[in-house]
């Protein structure tokens, strides 16, 4: 050692190995098996690249390990980290096996340590020539050939099952048997529509399934995909990522109107809008030729950023904050990349320069943020106003033409008669005729002379109708490209008060470039680029996030990070197959969803098996399905369906179901919560008004996002406050009372099925039969099973 470079990894990078990595690394590796992306990169990424990676500002000892050139270069010290084929001459190998505190890598103060298996992998890698592959997710996926699995019915095996079973076979594991019919319909109903099956749906399915399981299942899938509730369930999935909420956030947190965007999303899913169009309209609908009203509404995607209305702020600062958010959200949602990390410095792990961040930023720096009038539209409003003034003119004419008749009538009235006139008329009549306003004269006209004037009444009715339209005032927040572009500068350390070089819109160089053209590319070009077939990331990222919904975890566990720090795909061929197939089939969500739920992997039982606890305790290999606690909104929806209270109206303004007393007082600015009555009281959870700063407690407690930043995966916590909500919350107690009546009417078994979809066992019935109806109803709504999809 000639030189002892101070090699400090970022302190605090303390990562637990993912279960899958354990599987990989514990697998005995034959020498020829070492592959850079699968075996070596994860080790480097976790232990080395923070100081010996892409970020040149943090690079220690001039060493870069993620390129072949960098790894094999002669360092300032004269040492060479990697001498291909010669591990014993390689400084890297010497350092990782060193016993000396000052020389061993990674440095002990980082708290990181290489396992013996990991050291062996690195040694083998060097031995085999230290080849470096481009990070897997930056290579365009190719449709893999379907591997063969010994199975008597190979011809019928679903493509997804080929990949899953191949992996299982290599670990000597079998898939689980198919779940029972009740579990299947309950699982499918929640996963596709977010609602449990009704008793009628259950009964019909069970009969069909008995006679022909496959066709019954297929018919069910297709029915659910056609249901309007499908758009609600999957719309909500997208709204998490779009950080949708109904208020402005920050401290003032005033209400906003953007629910038309929410309805646009629901509608897009129900129409099965292809994802490429779905993405383009949301990112750049305003730039499409002859953009329709709907396409403009779609740009609300990037208006879901919070707005700070606190006094004394610098508005430019918060405009820029929302642009930062748009860049980060676009990166996360579509590319699965943490582009936002390059806001202040070059990305530490992924090849994204700070300059590239601001080139990406430039696409989003050129918009105005107007409010679009929707009902009535600006055009309609001006037409309506014109119509209204015509009608008013006609009305004026009537009043003028009948003036003499009214005067005659007035003159013939006795004082007593005058005193007995309706209030408005007696008020008008007391005023000196020369000083009467038009309204006064109108009031006198309708009192007697005009009381049966049909023409006049029709006019009034028409005017009223117009007023109703005009007062509707439905608007939505949208993006609108500016005529004259703003200049974009790189901000030193992400600080907008420190602008530096001027930059122009462009995409990160590690990804395919934009098609070259004359004009400066804009948001529309960016949107098209994101969903172009050449983009290696978007389809994989979205398909993975869809998979996550059906299995509780993505094929890439880090669903928001496909970069070098992200998890390795558990089934990379399957991921690529799904991504390419999805594009080939026209980016259809319904086809993709159908494909997944038709697989046997999806249909498996979720019951745990003893042998899996040792071999794959976290179920990375998918030898079974997984029990998943329902998402916050669905906990409510399940209760509403069980108690037969659900109002299944799709879309419209947000609603205000009961809220515990005192909640709204916690906010800085107290907002009104006018509890919805009638049908609106029983709408699906997704329509509950969301105040970012003060979200509805029964949604919040079950981990619903507040719409503050993009949420690509919900946490599923399990807490006492959830128990208190289901036990005592006013809304849930209301459900329990409704369910108690059902118990009285239909018996406990029927109520049990409404909550869990299945028939109770004798033991279960015995427990419940000891209770009065309301208690039994409350128990049913509190069961783990009721709030779980199995």
């Amino acid at each position: 050692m000639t030189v002892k470079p101070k090699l400090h990894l970022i302190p605090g990078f303390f990562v637990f190995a993912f279960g899958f990595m354990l599987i990989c690394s514990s697998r005995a590796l034959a020498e020829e098996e070492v592959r850079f992306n699968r075996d070596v990169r994860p080790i480097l990424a976790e232990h080395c690249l923070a100081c010996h990676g892409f970020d040149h500002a943090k690079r220690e000892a001039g060493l870069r390990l993620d390129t072949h050139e960098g790894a094999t270069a002669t360092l300032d010290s004269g040492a060479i980290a990697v001498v291909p084929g010669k591990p014993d001459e390689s400084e890297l190998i010497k350092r990782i096996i060193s016993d000396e505190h000052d020389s061993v890598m990674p440095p002990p103060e980082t708290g990181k340590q290489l396992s013996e298996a990991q050291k062996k992998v690195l040694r083998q890698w060097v031995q085999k020539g230290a080849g470096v592959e481009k990070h897997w997710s930056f290579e365009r996926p190719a449709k893999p050939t379907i591997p063969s699995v010994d199975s008597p019915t190979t011809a019928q095996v679903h493509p997804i099952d080929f990949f899953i079973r191949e992996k299982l076979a290599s670990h000597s594991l079998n898939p689980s048997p198919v779940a029972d019919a009740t579990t299947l319909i309950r699982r499918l109903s929640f996963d596709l529509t977010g609602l449990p099956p009704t008793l009628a749906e259950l009964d019909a399915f069970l009969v069909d399934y008995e006679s022909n399981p496959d066709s019954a299942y297929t018919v069910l899938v297709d029915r659910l995909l056609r249901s309007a509730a499908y758009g609600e369930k999957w719309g909500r999935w997208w709204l998490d990522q779009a950080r949708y909420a109904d208020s402005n956030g920050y401290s003032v947190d005033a209400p906003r109107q953007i629910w038309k965007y929410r309805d646009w999303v629901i509608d897009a899913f129900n129409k099965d809008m292809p994802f490429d169009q779905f993405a383009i309209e949301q990112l750049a609908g305003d730039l499409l030729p002859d953009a329709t009203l709907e396409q403009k509404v779609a740009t609300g995607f990037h208006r879901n950023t919070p707005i700070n209305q606190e006094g004394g702020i610098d508005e430019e600062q918060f405009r820029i904050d929302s642009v930062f958010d748009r860049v980060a959200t676009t990166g996360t949602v579509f590319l699965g990349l943490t582009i936002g990390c390059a806001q202040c410095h070059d990305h530490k792990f992924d090849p994204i320069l700070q300059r590239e961040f601001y080139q990406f930023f430039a696409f989003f720096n050129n918009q105005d943020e107007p409010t679009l009038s929707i009902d009535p539209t600006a055009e309609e409003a001006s037409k309506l106003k014109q119509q209204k003034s015509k009608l008013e003119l006609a009305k004026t004419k009537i009043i003028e033409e009948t003036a003499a008749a009214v005067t005659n009538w007035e003159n013939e009235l006795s004082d007593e008669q005058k005193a007995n006139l309706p209030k408005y008329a007696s008020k008008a009549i007391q005023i000196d005729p020369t000083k009467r306003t038009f309204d006064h004269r109108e009031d006198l006209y309708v009192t007697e002379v005009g009381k049966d004037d049909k023409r006049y009444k029709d006019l009034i009715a028409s005017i009223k109708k117009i007023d109703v339209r005009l007062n509707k005032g439905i608007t939505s927040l949208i993006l609108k490209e500016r005529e004259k572009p703003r200049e974009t500068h790189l901000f030193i350390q992400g600080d907008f008060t420190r602008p530096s070089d001027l930059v122009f819109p462009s995409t990160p160089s590690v990804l395919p470039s934009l098609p070259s053209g004359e004009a400066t590319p804009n948001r529309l070009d960016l949107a098209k680029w994101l969903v172009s077939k050449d983009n290696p990331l978007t389809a994989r990222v979205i398909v993975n996030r869809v998979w996550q919904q059906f299995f509780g975890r993505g094929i890439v566990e880090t669903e928001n990070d496909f970069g070098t720090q992200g998890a390795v795909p558990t089934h990379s061929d399957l991921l690529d197959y799904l991504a390419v197939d999805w594009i080939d089939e026209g980016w259809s969500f319904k086809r993709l969803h159908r494909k997944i739920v038709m697989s046997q992997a999806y249909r498996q039982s979720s019951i745990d098996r003893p042998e899996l606890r040792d071999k794959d305790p976290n179920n990375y290999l998918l030898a079974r399905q997984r029990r998943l606690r329902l998402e916050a909104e669905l906990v409510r929806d399940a209760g509403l369906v069980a108690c037969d209270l659900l109002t299944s109206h799709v879309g419209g303004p947000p609603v205000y179901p009961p809220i515990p007393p005192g909640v709204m007082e916690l906010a800085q600015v107290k907002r009104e919560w006018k509890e919805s009555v009638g049908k609106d009281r029983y709408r699906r959870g997704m329509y509950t008004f969301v105040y970012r700063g003060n979200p509805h407690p029964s949604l919040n407690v079950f981990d619903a996002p507040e719409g503050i930043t993009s949420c690509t995966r919900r946490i599923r916590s399990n807490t006492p406050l959830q128990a208190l909500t289901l036990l005592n919350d006013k809304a849930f107690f209301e459900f329990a009372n409704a369910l108690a009546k059902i118990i009285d009417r239909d018996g406990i078994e029927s109520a049990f099925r409404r909550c869990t979809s299945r028939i109770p066992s004798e033991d279960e019935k015995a427990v419940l039969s000891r209770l009065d109806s309301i208690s039994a109803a409350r128990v049913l709504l509190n069961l783990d099973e009721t709030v779980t999809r199995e």
Partner: protein
Amino acid sequence: MNDFNSLRDTTRRHFFDQCGIGVGAMALSQLQSQASGSDSLNKVSNPLAPKPTHFPAKAKRIIFLFMAGGPSQLDLFDYKPELSRLNGEPMPASYLEGKRFAFMNSSHRVNLLGTHRSFAQYGQTGTWVSDLLPHTAKIADELTFIHTCKTDLFNHAPAKLFMNTGSGQFGRPSMGAWFTYGLGSECDNLPGFVVLQSGPRGPRGGAIHWSSGMLPSTYQGVPLRNKGEPILNLTTPSSVSDAQQVEVLKATAQLNDLRLKEYGDDEIATRINAYEMAYKMQTSAPELMDTSSETQETLDFYGIKDAKESTFARNCLLARRLAQRGVRFVQLYHTNWDHHGGPTENLQEHLPKIATEVDQASAALVLDLKRHGLLEDTIVVWGGEFGRTPMGEVRESTGRNHHIDAFTMWFAGGGFKPGTSYGVTDEFGFGPVQDPVHVRDIHATLLHQMGLNHERLTVRSQGLDFKLTGVLPARIVKEVLA
């Protein structure tokens, strides 16, 4: 989150293997007997079970008295005779170059504003405190003052968020969530992170200040309400009798246990546990709020006139009761310290009023913890999201604007060095001339006292390992520690 989940899964799996099908039965028997002692079930399948520290801890819990709005350090603690001498003179331009302030374009003024208060030295340490805080002054020798606290953000909501989470951006865990995530809770019948509020309104930004961010909502702060039920949905519906509630809980546990046996999903065991804790909270939370067992002497000590009235003083007493019950992190918010000089926020009338509201009780809390033997392992923190400018801000009267370069906070107990003043500001109290202490240094120091290495307490999200102290280097302020 992956690391967290897999860790949790592993511990639960371990537990499950050991206890097998007995889980539900154990929980049920506990429910029936209403036993209060913790058992092995709670320790392993409860995410709030106590966890080992990184190294031996000096303190076990924190009570953070959050003075929302930004108290004027220049009228309370940081004595600046030169500022008073030059009252009305323009601020030397050299101080202001390149600085940004809130309300920059409207009411910002650059003339110096000396304090109207009289200062004196107190205790053996001769600590300067103004006449606004006579009770605090009396215990100056118990306290550790840092006069050079520094933050990054000058608007209320972002700055409060910064003090709580180490970031001005939404979506990060707050301090209390970090502590319960890192250490668990030593209280099995109340939440590990509790929030209390007093003053005319909630803190700007509301629930984001006690958010668990990317941590599971288990770690989120639970506001204890002064009116109505202390915890949302704590009370059994009025038409349900206690006997019925117990029957419901018993039957729920029995049925959940049957399902657990069939599926072997430890989430079911966790849920059985959660219901048990919920049931305990139904008793323990009202019991906590009921201060009738406290003596009149105690109430007088805190300055509580009406024990039913929701005041900062009552919240301080509740904080002591929470500390006694082992709650990890208690945060009290008191509004409003935003003395710009407007009609409801002037330095002449409203600053003295709010100072009086908090002074006696803050001091009483420290002394009361001490006489209960709790001060040595409880840290009390007193401070706001930022301080205020030495320059006057002219509104209806002359007040002070938000200021982020130097402000005062005090600490007591939990291994802080009593009778210490740390950090020196310039002649106007505008910026530090010695020993600046950034918010992240405060975070690192508090974590350190609680036995946690701020560089090791991380959570993985969006491809990054997040920590309370963020990405820039943070320093443990050893000089203020005993």
